[in-house]
């Protein structure tokens, strides 16, 4: 049972849109990170879909790109959360509306 490629691309677009919406509307820094993860996932789905439906690829480029992308996304999440925790320790808040000490 293979879903058509267009369906995968649609799912990926909607996922990306949800992530973008989360990033734009959320005010909690951690939930913004959640949105970023969703957007990265959407990109990964596209890579996998085109790898699977494209011409046979002996180099496995799409697959390995996703592998590295997942590794980098994990690293990004770790560093992001560490930064958020550090900010939280300073200000006791993860609300981005209150982190305005650089406001001129």
């Amino acid at each position, binding site marked *: *049972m*293979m879903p058509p490629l267009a369906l995968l691309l649609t799912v990926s677009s909607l996922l990306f849109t949800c992530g973008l919406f989360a990033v734009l*509307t959320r005010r909690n820094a951690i939930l913004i990170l959640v949105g970023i993860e969703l957007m990265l996932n959407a990109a990964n*789905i596209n890579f996998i*879909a085109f790898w*699977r439906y494209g011409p046979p690829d002996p180099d496995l480029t799409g*697959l390995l790109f996703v592998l*590295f992308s997942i590794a980098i996304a*994990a690293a990004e999440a770790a560093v992001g959360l560490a930064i958020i925790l550090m900010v939280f320790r300073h200000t006791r808040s993860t609300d981005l509306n209150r982190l305005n000490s650089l406001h001129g």
Partner: protein
Amino acid sequence: MILLAALGAVWKARPVHAALLLALTLALTAGLYLTIGADFIGLVQFMVYVGAVAVLIVFSLLITRPGDEAEELARRPGAVVGGLACVLPVAAVLLYAVSQAGDLPPGTDASPTLSLATLGQSLFTTYAPAVLAVGVLLTAVMVGAVLFARDPDKKPPTRSDP
């Protein structure tokens, strides 16, 4: 699988449940990979995203205790309208692009017999520099995360002087 997209949409509902729904979305994405035939990526996705990233996010939510849900919801309407105004054009463009892409390859129904040996071989021959770079990156990230997360007030453990 369409459930996946629906969940991504439902997911916007509440702050704390958002992280758990994110985990569910990521797990469903892993299932999607398994369905398509990218078994290895599906498993990696499950381990790294569901196992590590989602748990990490849940734990940091636990630590930081986002308590201002009511305030967030009260502030909602304006932000939601603004967000939709920004997001809908993007969605429209993406979906339009997908719908205009004629002649998409139908895809072979035979699932590609991808052996792990092939994968490992190309990982460590063609892509060996990238693997090394990722290794360096992960090391740097680990050191950096520990440095960030360390309590700055606490003195580093000194050796007990005689």
